């Protein structure tokens, strides 16, 4: 690592430590913290207010259990400082049983405004309208993309897509229904794209992007010919091979596409620019210090793997609205080196965690 980068890495680490300290004090102080963490503090064998002095000290917390997010009252997650603010609740999962919930006040706006700065204006023209080709319903993504469009001066057009129904169709083996539902989603997208709304930018999950490109090809046109110049994609697994296929064949090298990795808890991790020279390798970098993504030994989650090593993704969220220390994601990947734009660790090759993969229905929309 050259000295310039090392300086940037050290500065980022200092900023993360300072931010950690601020967030822990926020969440564990009765004037600002949420009922959940204030109660949890009493169960801990240390005092977060005095014993957490750096990011690494967060390892003192037991692993965050996502089961804690199921069911009500969701107000136990609302920091006292925000109790009078308008509250959103976003859900994840929920095909069967109780979904996991996250309360939000402004985080999705802040995250996507930060993300907006990474989008090149050449391909995501300010003022350009957007198509949101992803899940609707109680999802963060739908509102977040809409805010991104508005923040950049555009208007977002959305489709109706219920991913819980899609999962049920897959589990029931109703593949014909699944195809029809996919067609139904594509019909909505094509209608928006051909109704004179001057759409320039798009969010799409990889599967929906593929479906749309093929549908337009059947109709003798393409995503590029419809006027789209920039796509940010995410929501399900990305592979280098799929990315190359999408860039070369679905987008004909005429549309800019940037992969992202995110979830309702963390927010949005951007990717290092993806290039053919780099084998279409996709490396994600979390929006530090608001969130941290680490690659850890699955059996010893406090042990970070070597650079290039494989491990489970562990996320930490450190915003005033949410404190999630060390949540083990259902994904695995390889640890990546910091670089000038993101002087902290990244993760590449993200895919479902092998030890859990069999039990999860992934990549559904």
């Amino acid at each position, binding site marked *: 690592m050259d000295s310039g980068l090392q300086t940037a890495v050290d500065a980022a680490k200092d900023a993360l430590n300072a931010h950690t300290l601020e967030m822990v004090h926020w969440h564990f102080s009765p004037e600002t913290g949420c009922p959940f963490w204030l109660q949890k503090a009493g169960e801990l064998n240390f005092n977060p207010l005095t014993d957490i002095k750096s990011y690494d000290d967060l390892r003192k917390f037991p692993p965050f259990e996502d089961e804690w997010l199921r069911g009500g009252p969701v107000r136990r997650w609302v920091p006292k400082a925000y109790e009078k603010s308008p509250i959103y609740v976003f859900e994840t999962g929920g095909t069967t049983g109780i979904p996991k919930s996250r309360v939000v006040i402004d985080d999705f706006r802040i995250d996507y405004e930060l993300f907006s700065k990474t989008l090149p204006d050449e391909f995501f023209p300010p003022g350009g309208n957007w198509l949101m080709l992803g899940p609707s319903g109680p999802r963060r993504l739908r509102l977040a993309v809409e805010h991104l469009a508005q923040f950049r001066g555009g208007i977002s057009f959305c489709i109706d897509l219920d991913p819980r129904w899609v999962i049920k169709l897959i589990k029931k083996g109703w*593949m014909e229904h699944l195809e029809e539902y996919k067609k139904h989603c594509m019909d909505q997208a094509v209608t928006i794209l051909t109704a004179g709304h001057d759409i320039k930018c798009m969010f799409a999950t990889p599967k929906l992007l*593929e479906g749309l490109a*093929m549908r337009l090809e*059947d109709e003798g046109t393409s995503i590029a010919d419809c006027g789209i110049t920039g796509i940010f994609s995410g929501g399900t697994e990305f592979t280098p*091979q*799929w990315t190359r*296929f*999408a860039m070369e*064949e*679905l987008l004909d090298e005429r549309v800019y596409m940037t992969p992202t990795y995110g979830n309702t808890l963390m927010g949005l991790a951007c990717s290092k620019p993806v290039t053919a020279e780099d084998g279409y390798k996709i490396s994600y970098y979390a929006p530090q210090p608001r969130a941290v993504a680490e690659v850890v030994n699955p059996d010893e989650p406090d042990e970070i793997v070597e650079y290039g090593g494989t491990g489970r993704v562990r996320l930490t969220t450190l915003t005033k609205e949410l404190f999630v220390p060390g949540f083990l994601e259902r994904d695995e990947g390889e640890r990546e080196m910091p670089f000038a734009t993101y002087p902290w660790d990244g993760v590449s090759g993200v895919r479902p965690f092998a030890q859990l993969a069999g039990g999860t229905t992934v990549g559904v929309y």
Partner: protein
Amino acid sequence: MLSLPVLRWGKPYDSLEKDTVLHFNTGEAMAEVHQANAGLLQRDMKKASQAREALRQFTCADLIDKLKQAADLYVNETLPMGDGTQSPDEFVRMQSASTGLPEHMCRFNMTKNHFVLQNMDKMLDALTRGLDLDILSRGYGVESRGVVVSYQAQSSALGLVLPSNSPGVHTLWLPVIPMQVGLVLKPGPQEPWTPYRMTAAFMQAGVPAEAISIYPGGGDIGAAVLGSVDRALIFGGTPTVERYKGNPRVQAHGPGFSKFILADDVVDDWEQYLDIIADSIYLNSGRGCINCSGVWASRHTKEIAQALAERLGPIEPLPPEDENAGLAAFTAVINDRNMGSLVWDMIAEDLKEDGVTHCTEPYGPRLVEKERCAYLRPTIVHCTSPEQAIAKKEYMYPFSTVVECPQDKMLEKIGPTLVCSAITNDEKLARALTDATHIDRLNIGPIPTIKLDWLQPHEGNIVDFLFRARAYQITEDKLAALKS
């Protein structure tokens, strides 16, 4: 190490994702196989009509000749294999090393494929029941009895989701090219060899490259083949067969549950038939759907089971290069456990049921675990009733139950049966067996279940699957021109 690219209508495509085919005994990497993604296949299928067009540049007779040339190339020549080449001996060694099948069985399967290619004219004559093959090309024509008939291709290509563990199934798709229908092959992860080698032989014999695609990959590729090719074959277990039941686009080939029935009029002479029953259970390592997995009789079943156990029980695994090796290794691993070990767990569970006797137990443990593979030695199980769970099981090795069942209940109880060899002179029983719709191939008499008559269709006639007969009328002058 060989590198095998995806083949997109004859054009090689290097993927960024690769799977490695390992030698089951040494762990040596023999080939890296480029993995397709589903969208790539789906997009290519939009051009499937070009495959049929390319093949229609030749007559069916021309294509049959090319396949006869390909037969010799396949068996005798060193052919291109990805970025390298492969001799016939290397093919045998590699196929054995990845599938676990003994080398002499791989060699025998080559001979079988060669025979089918060499006799393609006779094979197609049998499959089409003597139809002039130009009628398939043109879509209509005049039959020998002077009547206009029409056969309409239902798909420009046939998709195949091929298995890893049974190289014998490849004979099913060999007649497709001479019917001017393209091929979309998804090889089994451990058996890429036959699709690539056969394709190389076809191309060297002059079959247009743009008629064949090969898409190695995972389950999503299999689903994409079935979803985007208008006619496709898949090989799998009972759940696969159930899933595609009633889907006119998919022909699912599952377990055979092939059986012997020893009828009341012959069962007292059971010892006479022991050789053909034992061969039907054991030959080709019991891997085929035509291998016998059940022997049904109303009496003497204990003696039959014990005699079969005495014959097959002592057989031990031998190295794959040994000409006497009769058992194939289980090479697949699921969740860190060898398939052979998982299969034995299922059998062991079923053996706990009352009335079930493991007759090969005195000949030592059946499961033989090696460092990188496992073997299951021949297993014979006696059942006092067809209701016992194991009575309707089939496994990919020499495994058979011997089931005691009154003759008048047999047809009701045997369940779906790919090959039924019924040894009987009882005309009434033979009639009932002939009428039984759950029996596919029927042998009346002491005929091994594994004996195929190549001129009779296997399960599901490929011609009926690919072409639809329909009414077609033309004016008298056109009819006269056609006849002239």
